[in-house]
């Protein structure tokens, strides 16, 4: 009756696709095309795998058909709202090794920015991402970590705790106006301000996607009309 049951009924999900942020240079795309061909990956939705769509901010969605990766989903993107361009992301990446293979992960602060979308499910994720980092490092924080927590923590109690221990540089108040409310140590006020902050960002994401969604819609219609048999056409 716990998490596994929630997974069974479809309410709880753990990530089953692999999201790749890539540099959209022609050489890199050629290399990626080759790797995807090795995986026998097909594009499963609009848009098609073309640099022009990636550069506009669309994602391209693949499903692998290679027996060793059967059904695996791979999403490729190159530009995300509010996230720095790829060369900067690359310098801040985290590198891990799994069973002898090297995997490059997006750095935590960049991942948090990438998660600031219009979707409900991304916001609890952001909160947890920052909380884990805070609890793991709060005893000997670096200046970068302090800045990150002041700008990204979404837990009123932890923001208050952080502010009790550190003076906040003035420029951060400009970057995140709700920090001024920390003076009051009022958790419910902070909770409300965090909701307002979230709503503002989600609204900005909806705005950002409006023209892109229209374009996707047009591409879907074009795909449907291509696949529909033409009326009146007989052999």
């Amino acid at each position, binding site marked *: 009756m716990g998490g*596994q049951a929630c*997974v*069974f009924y*479809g309410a709880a*999900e*753990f990530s*089953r*696709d692999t999201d790749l942020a890539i540099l959209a240079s022609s050489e890199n795309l050629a290399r990626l095309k080759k790797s995807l061909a090795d995986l026998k990956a097909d594009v*499963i*939705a*609009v848009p098609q795998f073309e640099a022009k769509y990636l550069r506009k901010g669309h*994602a391209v*969605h693949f*499903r692998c058909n290679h027996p060793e990766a*059967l*059904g*695996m*989903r791979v*999403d490729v993107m190159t530009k995300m709202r509010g996230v720095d361009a790829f060369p900067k992301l690359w310098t801040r990446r985290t590198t*891990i090794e*799994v069973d002898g293979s090297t995997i490059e992960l997006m750095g935590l602060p960049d991942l948090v920015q990438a998660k600031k*979308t*219009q*979707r*409900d*499910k991304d916001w609890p994720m952001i909160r*947890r991402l920052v*909380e*884990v980092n805070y*609890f*793991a490092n*709060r*005893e*000997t924080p670096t*200046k970068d970590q*302090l*800045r990150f927590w002041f700008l990204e923590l979404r*837990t009123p*109690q*932890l923001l208050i*705790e952080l*502010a*009790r*221990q*550190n*003076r*906040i*540089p*003035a*420029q951060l*108040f400009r970057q995140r106006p709700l920090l001024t409310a*920390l*003076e009051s*140590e009022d958790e419910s006020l902070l909770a409300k301000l965090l909701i307002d902050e979230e709503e503002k960002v989600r609204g900005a994401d909806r705005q950002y*996607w409006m023209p*892109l*969604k229209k374009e*996707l819609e047009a591409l*879907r219609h074009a795909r*449907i009309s291509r696949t529909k048999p033409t009326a009146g056409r007989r052999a």
Partner: protein
Amino acid sequence: MSSPASDDDAFQPMPERTLFTSGKVVAIYRVGFFTTILRRNQLNFPGCQRLLRGAKLCLMITPEEIVGEEWASWYRLSPQERWHESEKLWQVYFYLGGSLDAQPDTQSPFFDPGAPSMGVAHGRPGMRILRRSRV
């Protein structure tokens, strides 16, 4: 409580004598600009009590208070441990016949109701539903 510091980048610790404790393991003792981490077992060292006299004790929030026991124990795992636990979840997921298709995400700008689906479970082929709840 914190108030705006200078415009530069520097984060300044609060100047008052404050003892922060995170419950079980360590205490952080701060006097002026100096921060000392004291292990619990060091608190009885000679001179320690005198040093701490008059310090303000602030209990640090534990993960349990914020997210409950289950999530707190997940938080406490190392990234490597979390990776391994996640691999175990995958095995159970496949055992139950879980599909690799993404859940329909109607809030995503990428959501395409017409996108083709594998339509089958990719996991253990032996998983069958023998009885369903009424709902």
